[in-house]
C-alpha cells in the first residue's frame, strides 16, 4: 500500500470526527440490537404474519353476522362481538390485511413522488424550485386532515380515494426534506468532480447525489408510517375511507365509539393501530440513530 498508510484523517479536525470515532459506520444488525428496535421489529413482523395468515388464524369469518350482538369478550369471542354480531377478533386480524398494505403503499408512493419532485427542485433551482416549493407551501398551508377530507370527499368514499387524498397531502414533506438535502449535496466536491468529468443531470442526480442523501428520507418514511395508518384510519373514521362492511381498523374504531357502553368494539382495533404506530416509530428511531454517525456512537453503548 502507499507510504502514507499510517496517516489518519487530515490535520483539520473541525469537520471530521476524531480518530476514535472514525470507525466504519456500524452495520445495521448491531443497531437493531437495541431493545426498542427489537420490540418494534417483533411487533411489525407479528402483524405481517397475521396479515398473511389471517384466514388461518382468525377463528371466524370477519363478515359473518351469526353471533350474539354486542357480546363482551369471552372464551368463544376473545374480543367480543359487534353490533351486527360479528367477531371483533377476526375483524381486527383481517383488518391488518387492509390497513398495513395500504399505508405501506401510501408511504412508499409519497416518498417516491415527494423525493423525485424535491430532488428536481433542489437540483435545478430557480424557477423550477420556486414553482414546486410554492405548490408544496400551498398544501402545507392547510391542516393535513382537513385537506385530505376535502380531496377524499370530492373523490367519493373508497379506500383507494382515501389513499390518493392522503398522497396529495403527504408528498410535500418529503419534497422539502429532499430539496434541502440535494441543495447541500449539489455543491459537494464529488458532485462537482463528476460534473467536470462530463456527467449530465441524470447521472449526477442518480449516481452522485441521491444515493448519498437517501438515508434521511428513508428514516422519515419509517417515522411517517405510523402517521399514514392514523390518517387512513382517521379518514375511515370519518366515513371517507373504508366502506362497510370492510374490516378496516379506523372504521372499526369509528363504529365502536358510537356504542358507548361496549368498550371492546373500539379498544381492540385501536390497540392494533397503537401497536403498529409505536413499532414503526421505534424502528424509525433506530434507523435514524444507525444512519446518523453522531448518535451511532452513543447507540453502541446501549446495544444488548
Amino acid at each position: 500500500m502507499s507510504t502514507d498508510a499510517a496517516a489518519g484523517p487530515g490535520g483539520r479536525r473541525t469537520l471530521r470526527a476524531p480518530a476514535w470515532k472514525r470507525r466504519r459506520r456500524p452495520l445495521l444488525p448491531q443497531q437493531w440490537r437495541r431493545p426498542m428496535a427489537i420490540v418494534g421489529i417483533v411487533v411489525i413482523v407479528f402483524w405481517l404474519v397475521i396479515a398473511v395468515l389471517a384466514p388461518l388464524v382468525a377463528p371466524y369469518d370477519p363478515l359473518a353476522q351469526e353471533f350474539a350482538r354486542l357480546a363482551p369478550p369471552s372464551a368463544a369471542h376473545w374480543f367480543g362481538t359487534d353490533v351486527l354480531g360479528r367477531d371483533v377478533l377476526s375483524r381486527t386480524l383481517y383488518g391488518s390485511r387492509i390497513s398495513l398494505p395500504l399505508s405501506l403503499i401510501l408511504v412508499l408512493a409519497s416518498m417516491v413522488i415527494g423525493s423525485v419532485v424535491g430532488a428536481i427542485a433542489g437540483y435545478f433551482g430557480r424557477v423550477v424550485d420556486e414553482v414546486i416549493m410554492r405548490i408544496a407551501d400551498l398544501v402545507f398551508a392547510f391542516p393535513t386532515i382537513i385537506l385530505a377530507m376535502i380531496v377524499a370527499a370530492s373523490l367519493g368514499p373508497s379506500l383507494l380515494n382515501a389513499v390518493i387524498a392522503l398522497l396529495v397531502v403527504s408528498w410535500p414533506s418529503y419534497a422539502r426534506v429532499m430539496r434541502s438535502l440535494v441543495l447541500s449535496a449539489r455543491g459537494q466536491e464529488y458532485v462537482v468532480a463528476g460534473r467536470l468529468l462530463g456527467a449530465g443531470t441524470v447521472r449526477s442526480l442518480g449516481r452522485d447525489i441521491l444515493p448519498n442523501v437517501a438515508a434521511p428520507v428513508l428514516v422519515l418514511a419509517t417515522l411517517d408510517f405510523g402517521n399514514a395508518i392514523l390518517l387512513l384510519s382517521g379518514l375511515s373514521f370519518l366515513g371517507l375511507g373504508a366502506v362497510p362492511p370492510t374490516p378496516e381498523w379506523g372504521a372499526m374504531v369509528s363504529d365502536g365509539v358510537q356504542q358507548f357502553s361496549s368498550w371492546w368494539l373500539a379498544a381492540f382495533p385501536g390497540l392494533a393501530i397503537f401497536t403498529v404506530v409505536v413499532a414503526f416509530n421505534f424502528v424509525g428511531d433506530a434507523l435514524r440513530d444507525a444512519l446518523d454517525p453522531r448518535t451511532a456512537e452513543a447507540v453502541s453503548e446501549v446495544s444488548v
Partner: protein
Amino acid sequence: MSRVGRGQADGLTESPGADAADWRGLRIGGLTLSVRGKDGPSEILRGVDLRVPAGEVTGLAGESGSGKTMTGLAVCGLQPAGALVRGTVELRGERMLVPNVLSLRSRELNRVRGREVAMVFQDPTASLHPMISIGGQLTDHVRHHLGMSKQDAREHAVSLLERVHVPRPREALSRYPHQFSGGQLQRIAIASAIACAPSVLIADEPTTALDVTVQAGVLRLLRELCDDLGLAVLLVTHDLAVMSSVADTIAVMHDGAIVEHGDRRQVIRHPRNDYTRSLIESLPKTPPPGAGPYDEELTDAR
C-alpha cells in the same frame, strides 16, 4: 505562594510530599485511554508521560490519529463518553494543587476546568457562541468562576482584550463573533481561556485554520502570554515548523505514546527517534526565504 486555595475546602488536597517539589505546572503520568471498538477495546493512549512546566511552551507533535488531541482532552477530563482512562494528571497551580485531576468528581472537575486548566481549539467559531456578544461571553465566564460584579467583569474583559491585542476592546465587547476575522476570533478565544488566570493552557492546533500572516501573530501572542503570565502551555499541533518557533521543548507522539521528548533544537536538529526523523525529513526542504534586503523595511513597517 499560598497553599490555601479553594481547592482544600472542596477536598482537593495535595498529595503528600507536594512541598518537596517546588515546580508548578502539569504532570501527566502513565496516562492510558481506551475506547470500546467494534472488535474489543482499542487503546488510544498507551501510557503517556509528560511534564508541562509553568512558564514554558511544551509542544506535543504527531500526525493525526497519534493521540495528541486525545491527550489534551483527557487532561481536562473531556475524554469521549465510555472511554476508560487510567493514570495520573497532577496539577500544581498557583491557587490549587490537585494530585490527580482524573480522580475528581464532576463538580470539582468543572471548577478545575476553565479556572485552572483552559483550552483553546482549532476553530474559534466553534468555541464562541454565535448569538452572544463578545462582552457577554467574556463576562459570563469570570462572573461564574470568580464571582465578580457586572461592572468589574466588564473592566476585566476590556483588560483581557487589551492583553490579547484586540484593537478597540471597548467597542469589541458589544460586537458578535461573526463581525470578527478568524485571527481576531482566535485571540478572543484565547482571552476567554485566560479570563480566570489559569495556570495551564492547552492549545489544540490553535493556528492550523489561520493564514500564515495571522498565524504568526497568534503564535507571538501565545509565547508572550506564556512568558508574562507564567502559564504552562501545552501546544498540540502537527506542524513542526510552528512547533520549532514557539515551543521550548517538543514531545513527539506516535501511536498513543511519546517516542521522544527534548529541547526543541535537539528534537528538530538531532532527532534520536526514527519516527521523529521521518517526520522532520518529510518537511519541505527550503532555505530561509527572502535573503534579500527586505528585513529592515519590514522592521520599519512594524
